[in-house]
């Protein structure tokens, strides 16, 4: 018997195309799943408006459900409430760290110019002595940091609220 809970379990097998250790459930982009007159509707919310991974995620979701024998599903985009990094699960944060990406930490208000960059511990050696290289990193969701202790550069999954 197909249920929203079962579909959610299946979606735990769909990885994020850019950060493959995270599932789309860990990332918090799957919203409501419901039956609309015999059709399963999967609500997805983008992390960033222009995130190029979203199209891939949609295709992967439908392919995964077809593999499981669910052919009557469609994707519904939702923009509100807007995605926030608070929706990344604890499990997801742990996986990010193991993968070498620092998970989001609470950041100062964005209206404060030249605010102190947040303390982001190095995901490799855990040192809090790190510095921000650039507000913008390899993808829209990341900033670029360097560890001052082990000298390794690393990605920081920046806080979005």
């Amino acid at each position, binding site marked *: 018997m197909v249920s929203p809970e079962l579909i959610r379990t299946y979606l735990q097998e769909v990885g994020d195309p850019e950060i493959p250790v995270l599932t789309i459930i860990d990332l918090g982009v799957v919203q409501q799943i419901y039956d609309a007159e015999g059709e399963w509707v999967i609500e997805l919310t*983008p992390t*960033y*408006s*222009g*995130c*190029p991974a979203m199209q891939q995620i949609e295709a992967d979701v439908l392919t995964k459900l077809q593999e499981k024998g669910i052919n009557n599903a469609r994707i519904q985009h*939702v*923009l*509100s*409430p*807007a*995605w*926030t990094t608070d929706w990344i699960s604890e499990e997801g944060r742990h996986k990010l760290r193991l993968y070498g990406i620092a998970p989001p930490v609470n950041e100062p208000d*964005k*209206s404060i*110019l*030249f605010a102190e960059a947040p303390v982001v511990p190095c995901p490799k050696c855990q040192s809090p002595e790190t510095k921000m*290289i*650039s*507000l*913008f*990193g*390899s993808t*829209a969701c990341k900033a*670029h940091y360097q560890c001052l202790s082990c000298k390794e550069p690393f990605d920081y999954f920046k806080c*979005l*609220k």
Partner: protein
Amino acid sequence: MEQKALFEYVLRMADDSLILGQRLGEWCGHGPILEEDIALTNISLDLIGQSISLFDLAAALQGEGKTHDDLAFLRFENQYKNVLLVEQPNGDFAMTILRQFFFDAFRKPFYEALCKSPITQLAAIAEKSLKETRYHLKHTSEWVIRMGDGTEESHARAQAAIDHLWRYTHELFYEDAIDAELQASAQVPSLKAIETSWLETVKAVFAEATLEIPANNWKFDGGRQGRHSEHMGYLLAELQYMQRAYPNMQW
């Protein structure tokens, strides 16, 4: 009738985002430093992403079965309704950053106000885009201050960019019958209050940056009616090339 006004309104927003996103994309591989190359193209990606949401809404309002790609790629120059500011050439890094700063300082209070619109799809796009816009505004404000209060050379370039671009900034607050109709029924915010907020941001950042608002008050407009500057045709030639050369192509 209101549906038609709303279509036009959303199209104007979508075109502002698309054309500025296209301009920033031209920096790809040409940034002054690698980090800025990545920053400018990240901002470009956010803007193009926002334009997709807006074009989807516009296409639904139009009701002719068009897609966001049809609207983005297959119109003629006089059918694009963006403000002249966003189509101005990149120039040097100062010109690009000042153009972006003027735009971000407008979009932030604009989106804040639009979040309260009773048109739920439009409010949702505003809510989503606002988070990205705050980040853009922080980035460009810091650069304006760094350049203005930096070296003699960076100060001169930043001031030259302001002197050149100022004439295009007034059009961000241009209002006509389309706005009046939607404002009358409280669907969208008045741009008067947005302009006040914009000017406060500009003055505060310029004060930190030791930069000045130009004395002359030339005002250029026409973009909202599809009358563009000479730069627009070249931009569209590049933007539309693939769809014109290979109709209906898809990635």
